[in-house]
């Protein structure tokens, strides 16, 4: 048991570190660019040097690297402040689906531009009536000649307004059972009839959109998998989702609350002197360490060519409520002044307030706490599903709030 790279990993790390050290965009280069331009500049630079999407095959614009090399590259890149990526969903979820289900010509056509950052992709699965029950989607596609005509609404689509392409699942036969009447497509997001409206969140951000479709036409050639096979294709996308959504990233953690407690006085002495504060901090430290070392165990599995299990759902299930409680606790430490949410006036530029307001979203996006617990019980512990009343009957006959 050690923390050292294998020799091959060590060599790869040196190579990656060297390239990164010489190629990280300078402030001057980024000056005057918006966040999309910055992300594209950095992605293109990596692509040109063979450091983009390194696990992809070379013919699709990647490097043919393995999983642990990806981890190493990410670790090394993480040592720098680089432009925020806008390609996570496209490269992390859409691309694996395309590579598994699209034909070779299509992949040759679309993948390199996705790897290079020229094109941004988004994912259109959720619908207002869906939520945790993703397969309950109702939006229809109707065959018309060589096209499918699409009407309806998708929701929770990140980056829809700056995306070039999207993947989506539609109901092509409402009289089939729920999971069998679905079909999967990709489409040009600039197609006529698409209207995008940002969703304002309680945290103040607007990372997601509603996307309205009016008689949008998708060529049948852009169908992935057979008609009616959409759920199976969607599972390819979703299996890649869990890996890419973390516990909410950045945000409040042990370090920030420990520092706050060390620098905030309660009754004339730093809060960190208070045994109650210490005990809470200890618990959070222990949780964070547990998550970190669980990650190390997963990386070891990757390094050995094994596939880490759905144990990774733990990260989100533990991390998201922890962030909420820690943020709430930090505001309490600040006492009355915790209410102030102002970049200039608040501790850490409002990190604690921002996390208090954002963390309810962490507990929902990418699978609620409750869904995560189901997943662990079912896929890890092998416990049976809850009783399903929506199986084996036509989708149109499944009870809904309207019925």
């Amino acid at each position, binding site marked *: 048991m050690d923390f050292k790279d294998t020799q091959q990993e060590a060599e790869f790390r040196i190579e990656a570190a060297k390239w990164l050290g010489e190629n990280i965009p300078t402030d001057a280069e980024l000056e005057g660019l918006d966040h999309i331009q910055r992300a594209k500049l950095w992605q293109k630079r990596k692509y040109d040097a063979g450091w983009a999407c390194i696990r992809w095959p070379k013919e699709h614009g990647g490097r043919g690297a393995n999983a642990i090399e990806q981890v190493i590259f990410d670790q090394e890149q993480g040592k720098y402040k680089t432009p925020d990526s806008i390609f996570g969903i496209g490269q992390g979820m859409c691309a694996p689906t395309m590579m598994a289900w699209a034909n070779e010509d299509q992949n040759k056509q679309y993948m390199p531009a996705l790897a290079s950052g020229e094109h941004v992709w988004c994912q259109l699965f959720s619908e207002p009536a869906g939520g945790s029950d993703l397969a309950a989607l109702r939006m229809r596609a109707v065959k018309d000649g060589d096209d499918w005509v699409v009407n309806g609404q998708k929701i929770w689509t990140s980056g829809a307004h700056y995306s070039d392409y999207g993947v989506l699942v539609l109901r092509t036969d409402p009289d089939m059972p729920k999971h069998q009447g679905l079909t999967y497509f990709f489409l040009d997001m600039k197609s006529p009839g698409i209207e995008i409206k940002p969703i304002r969140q309680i945290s103040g951000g607007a990372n997601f959109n509603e996307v309205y479709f009016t008689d949008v036409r998708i060529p049948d050639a852009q169908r992935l998998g057979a008609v009616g096979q959409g759920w199976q294709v969607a599972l390819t996308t979703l299996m890649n989702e869990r890996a890419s959504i973390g516990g909410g990233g950045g945000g409040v953690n042990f370090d920030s609350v420990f520092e706050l407690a060390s620098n905030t006085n309660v009754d004339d002495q730093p809060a960190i002197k208070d045994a109650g504060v210490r005990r809470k901090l200890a618990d959070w430290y222990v949780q964070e360490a547990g998550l970190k070392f669980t990650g190390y165990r997963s990386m070891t599995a990757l390094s050995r060519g094994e596939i880490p299990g759905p144990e990774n759902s733990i990260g989100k299930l533990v991390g998201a409520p922890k962030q909420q409680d820690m943020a709430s606790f930090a505001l309490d430490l600040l006492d009355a002044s915790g209410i*102030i949410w*102002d970049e200039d006036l608040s501790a850490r530029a409002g990190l604690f307030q921002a996390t208090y307001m954002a963390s*309810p979203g962490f507990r929902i996006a990418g699978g609620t706490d409750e869904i995560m617990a189901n997943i662990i019980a079912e896929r890890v512990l092998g416990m049976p599903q809850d009783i399903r009343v929506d199986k084996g009957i036509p989708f149109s006959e499944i009870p809904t709030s309207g019925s």
Partner: protein
Amino acid sequence: MNFEFSEEQNMLREQAQGFLQDNCPTSRVRSILDGEESFDKDLWQKVVEMGWTATVIPEEYDGLGLSYLELSVIAEELGKAIAPIPFSSSVYLATEILLAAGSAEQKSDWLPKLAAGSAIGCLAVAEGSGTTSGSGLTSEIKGGKLTGIKIPVADGDIADFAMVLAQSDQGPTVCLVSLNQSGVGCERVKTLDPSRSHACLSFTEATAEVVGESGQGLVLLESIYNRAAVLFAWEQVGGADTALDMAKEYALGRFAFGRPIATYQAIKHKLAHAYVKNTLARSNCYFGAWALATDAKELPIAAATARVAAIQAYYYASKENIQTHGGMGFTWEFDCQFPYRRSKLLAINIGSEAVWQEKLIQAIEKDRAA
């Protein structure tokens, strides 16, 4: 044993509920949260007309001379409605300080105005982060002149006068400062709950008068906080019930996997636990209200008990309400944000959970030593 509100008090509650349903739907909360106004002036005017600001003010000062049980009823209903008005600052804090420690002149100057709603008061204690104890205090009062900076001050930009904690030669002292004078600067600050306004107040040689005994400010505030804690707790319990109701209604109507999410144990047990927390908090508020209304020696314990329970209940109900709603609950468009924001404001406005847990144990120790 008659541990229940009277028929008249329950009638007051019905009347208050009807009034607030008409005059304080969540769309009003939203318009303050989302707009430029610092409070709902229209609602405030009507609340004043209902006589709510005059509830416990004695009749000799144009008040209604009712008891704290009536005020508890009003507090709970305002909490349920998540009302965007400076009621707690003006009624539970500023009015209470005047009643407890104001001179005859101060009382006759201000209480009739507070009762009639022609003046709004607020309390200014905090000077930045952490709890404010005597020794850290930098605001100073000297020869009737106040200098210092107070931030945040709930409703500081709305109020006509502030009760300010400042250092005098005798020690920490509460003083009354009219905010309509040169020497007072006021800037709104951005907060987590913009449905209730907060300000930074700066005083430069502002005219101020001592309230109560000079140097006895902390003792005065301690007793005021104990009184206010009960009323805050009622607001919190009201809000917690609103959050639970929202969650339950949504769960009954929202379907997943072919059935209402209200049929899933994860949701049922979540809401059952919210109900339990709310019920225990409410029962503790009953005792708090009794202690406040009868000026019982149990007030310090009763107040801390009610406040701790209410803080915990409101946090749990408001966060799990969003969780029950899923993604929709996280959107600006939905109302789930109101109780979630307000729960934190009320939780830290007069001392946080840990502060009151400590007060509770101290009060119990004192009680048992006696």
